[in-house]
């Protein structure tokens, strides 16, 4: 019997290594796997590359990783925001490298990794600073930039519910990067607020089939969501 449900957040991230690349779902707080990130901090892994839309705000989640100085590099679209002070400080001190990627290219490059493409020609960013030095090509009268897939060792994802095979459904806009990150990482770890029996999720409405999920952990503190 295959049961992808593990007993604790700590167990879920136990095999993290220093230097790992980690995708983290979320758009702001919605969909951010805060409890898994806490477990990463407790685990102690450092020199991490974080791939996420933001670089953390406030004091929890990615911001806490920043504060603990565990991050070597951030690949994201929107690092600077209200309360991104922990990232800002590390960045200004030269302690964290930033690869700034337009949000849609971030999504498309993550999708390309999940789908096994070698590279994609995307129109986004052509002629801008963010395409400097990159290969470009005119195709059918339009200009494109060649962008490469973003793979990761781990994806940390927040979903609403899962079964023991790792099938996932999400909640409202907390879905955001979860489904595409789950496809792009070697090991996908998901925190959910509900575990359901096999067959309880409508096969027509499963958003992430279990093939893309390695471990599921119940966030027992989830009062809402």
């Amino acid at each position, binding site marked *: 019997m295959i049961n992808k449900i593990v007993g604790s957040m700590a167990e879920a991230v136990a095999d993290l290594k220093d230097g790992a690349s980690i995708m983290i779902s979320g*758009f*702001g*707080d*919605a*969909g951010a796997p805060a409890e898994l990130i806490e477990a990463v901090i407790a685990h102690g892994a450092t020199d991490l590359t974080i791939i996420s*839309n933001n670089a953390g705000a406030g004091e929890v989640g990615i911001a806490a990783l920043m504060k603990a100085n565990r991050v070597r590099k951030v690949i994201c*679209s*929107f*690092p*600077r*925001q209200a309360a991104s002070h922990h*990232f*800002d400080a590390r*960045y*200004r001190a030269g302690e964290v490298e*930033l690869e*700034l*990627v*337009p*949000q*849609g*290219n971030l*999504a*498309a490059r*993550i*999708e390309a990794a999940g789908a096994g493409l070698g590279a994609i020609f*995307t*129109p*986004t*960013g*052509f*002629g*801008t*600073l*963010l395409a400097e030095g990159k290969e470009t090509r005119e195709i059918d009268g339009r*200009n494109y930039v060649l962008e490469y897939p973003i793979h990761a060792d781990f994806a940390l994802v927040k979903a609403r519910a899962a079964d023991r095979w790792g099938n996932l459904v*999400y*909640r*409202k*806009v*907390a*879905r*955001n*990067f*979860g*489904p*595409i990150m789950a496809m792009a990482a070697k090991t996908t770890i998901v925190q959910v607020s509900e575990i359901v029996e096999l067959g309880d999720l409508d096969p027509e409405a499963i*958003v992430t089939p279990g093939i893309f999920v390695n471990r599921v952990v119940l966030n027992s503190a989830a009062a809402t*969501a």
Partner: protein
Amino acid sequence: MQRMDRTALAARVARDIPEGAYVNLGIGAPTMVGNFLPRDKDIFLQSENGLLGMGPAPAEAEIDWELINAGKQPVTILAGGAYFHHGDSFAMMRGGHIDICVLGAFQVSVHGDLANWHTGAPDAIPAVGGAMDLAIGARQVFVMMDLLTKTGESKLVANCTYPLTGLACVSRVYTDLAVFDVGPQGARVVEMVDGLDLDKLRELTGVDLELA
């Protein structure tokens, strides 16, 4: 001459959005356009974080932090709305499925180049979000901005000096003093506030202008 305030400008932009349009409203002032869309018409608001059929802000008691817009403000979903992931959301933009997006800007060139993500200041921490995807993806890009900076320089320019968001992507610029069409032919004045004339506008902007 009577400048339009932000509210009046949002209402002005809203008048150009037809029923049936799929629309993305950028964060900041463009979000206000939503307040002036006619409630009796079906206009479909897309939010880049995975929502189509976005409704107005909820009552305080109904706030759900997993139902927010791209500016991270609480919103609602209309009957007939749908959720989707970020890949599909940006496919909507990049694939040309969004009819109109409304964005703010630091500068727009008379040929439709857009600069709205980075001041170029050496100590600035840049952030781009979805601006570049929207700029080149939406079929029509409307910009909403003050025509002049606080120090009186025109934000409608012959050539952008700030780092670009997208090339030749803006079709219309709504400002507090005038509305312009921009594109391959240069800038055309669609309308001006009372008390302004073409010569005065040329003087304020320093760019070639014709009436539309």
